[in-house]
């Protein structure tokens, strides 16, 4: 029955169409629009090609620069925190003990809750009058209550905490999958050679779980760079613009202000940033991994 490569293409076609339609097309369209001045509320200005003007404006826009820094700080804090905590959780969940099944399911709960719901929940937790956060810290001493979402210095930290709570279990899940792929014989052999628990972790677990760590880092970095819903629900970018991450700023430009060209330029920058960071990860960690494999 098989003649040539035709059948394979036929099977691949639906997913190719899907990717082209829903991934490639929007990306290409964002690139294209970012070179135009298109303001929906001023249709008489038309859709004028302006070359790099949007990008030049972006480079000198103090709000955009501030958003850029905010996004980077957010990524730099949440991603390592999530992967490290996730690693810890995965190591615990990988041990066998009573109630492990329950614990594994419980750990996934934050990840399973829709982000919008989780954001709303954290908004309540951080409320300055009835929030659980204040009650735990100060009990009845209401005069000492904080308003984390109202403090320019704390609002971003509050959002980071919510993000770490929400997505650490996702990192843990990926890392756990990596841990389960490590053959038990390696640990047995190491025990016979008299290796300590730390040595086993350092020389067996860590190198072999690295691909999973890389994957977790990669996913979390891209996701953290695109954080939107937490900001949307918890602070709307405030107070004093301290939580106005790049993705939220771009959203505001396109969806609230109708500045499609400028907003698309922001979207493209976010896209390129995730792309560059992903490539760096794959290069750095991936290369080292490959080198190790070759030397084995």
């Amino acid at each position, binding site marked *: 029955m098989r003649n040539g490569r035709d059948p394979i293409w036929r099977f691949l076609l639906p997913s190719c169409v899907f990717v082209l339609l829903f991934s490639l097309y929007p990306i290409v369209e964002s690139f294209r629009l970012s070179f135009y001045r298109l303001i929906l*509320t001023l249709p008489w200005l038309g859709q004028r090609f302006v070359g790099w003007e949007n990008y030049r404006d972006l480079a000198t826009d103090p709000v955009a620069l501030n958003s850029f820094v905010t996004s980077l700080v957010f990524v730099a804090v949440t991603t390592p925190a999530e992967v490290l905590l996730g690693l810890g959780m995965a190591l615990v969940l990988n041990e066998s003990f009573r109630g492990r099944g329950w614990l594994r399911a419980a750990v996934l709960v934050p990840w399973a809750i829709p982000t919008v719901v989780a954001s709303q929940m954290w908004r309540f937790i951080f409320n300055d009058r009835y929030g659980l956060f204040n009650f735990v810290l100060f009990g009845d001493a209401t005069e000492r209550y904080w*308003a984390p979402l109202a403090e320019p210095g704390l609002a971003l930290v509050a959002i980071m905490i919510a993000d770490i709570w929400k997505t650490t279990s996702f990192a843990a899940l990926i890392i756990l999958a990596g841990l389960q792929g490590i053959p038990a014989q390696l640990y047995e052999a190491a025990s016979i050679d008299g290796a300590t628990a730390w040595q086993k972790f350092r020389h067996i677990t860590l190198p072999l779980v690295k691909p999973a760590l890389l994957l977790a880092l990669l996913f979390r970095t891209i996701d953290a760079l695109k954080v939107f819903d937490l900001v949307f629900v918890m602070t709307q970018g405030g107070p004093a613009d301290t939580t106005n991450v790049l993705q939220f700023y771009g959203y505001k430009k396109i969806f609230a*202000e109708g500045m499609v060209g400028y907003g698309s330029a922001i979207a493209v920058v976010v896209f390129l940033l995730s792309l560059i960071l992903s490539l760096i990860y794959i290069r750095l960690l991936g290369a080292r991994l490959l080198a190790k494999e070759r030397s084995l």
Partner: protein
Amino acid sequence: MKALLTAFFVCLIASSAAGQTQLRFVTWKPETTAVWEQLIADFERRHPGVKVIREVGPNSSTEFHDLVTQKLRNQDAEMDVFFMDVIWPSEFAAAGWALPLDRFFPVAQQKEFFAAPIAANRYRGHIYGVPLFVDAGVLYFRKDLLAKYRLAPPRTWPELVEQARLILARERDPYLTGYSAQFKQYEGLVCNMMEFIMSNGATLWDEENLKSTLDSAGAKQAVRFVRDQIIRTISHRGVLAYQEPESLALFTQGKAIFHRNWPYAWEVANDPKRSKITGQVGMEPLPAFPGQKSVAALGGWQLGISRFSRKAQLAWEFVEHMTGREAQKRIALATGRGPARLALYHDGELLAKEPHFRELYETFTLAAPRPITPVYLPLSNIMQRYFSSAVAIADSDIDQLAHLAARDMDRVLSLLQGGRLP
């Protein structure tokens, strides 16, 4: 592919609507649902075969705007009638999203409404929305607390601060706050701050020359007052994260002396099911700075019709029904929101139940609109950023921030001037 998808969805819609005409009304969740359901049921009774589908969007004006404009951008023919905040009609008109209603809603009929919301619904000589109710910022206060210390309602902002400090010092209640209002970085912040600025004789912009006036001495002085005298003195820090519901909850729990909100708060604060301070609530026009006039920000909601609706005539009949005298009266009776129709302020039955409408009439007549321009949203985002930075940070450099905000506003406004040239 696109044609196929369209065909699929058309089939889907057609099959669900078999034998019945659907009219989709995009609304936010009202505080009192019963009256809306009754009004819609009345409309359906008068139009057999018509089913009004209510699509409920978010309560926050900003988020509701994003929902409605997304449908309009996508030229969604499904949405027929939608709510518009008073700041949107010129944007929707300029973008070609709202249907001009001149043939349905002639000037003679427009005269039956407050002038300010009608002006906000007009753009380049056409009308794009029918006002349903008007809003204006008012000051609520605890009558019992003021009486206890023999104080009259404050006429000026410094007086309000002084009274709040006195009461706070004597009451010694750590839960009590002096002034509860909306200082989160969102649209409500612009309303609150513009009331301070304009009641100091300053303005947000120069409408003639399309220039921002945020860096005028009077405007900066008002902003500085809020930062130094309100936020850091008589309010607790939490107000910087408050929208209407949180600030009102504080007041109805009896934990705020003064509260700034829209007229709907009167109904809530006097409802024993939702408030601990019924009967102790006073309402007055907002204070002004000494020697200046009180200014309330104009708010309110209108009904508009989508240009992409295929049922304009039916949609209009629905709008006419919902904004008619009878409907506005019932909404006012049930929700305490101020009707947009002037005649209702002489309606004996309504005034008997809601006597405070008599005082609100003048506030509504004098209420000041936010800048009426298709680029209001970009302007508002610049102002929100500026006001939040100025009042949330104790040692903010207001001169510098105001200068930058005014410059950014001027840049956005220059788009309008550029647009006029061929």
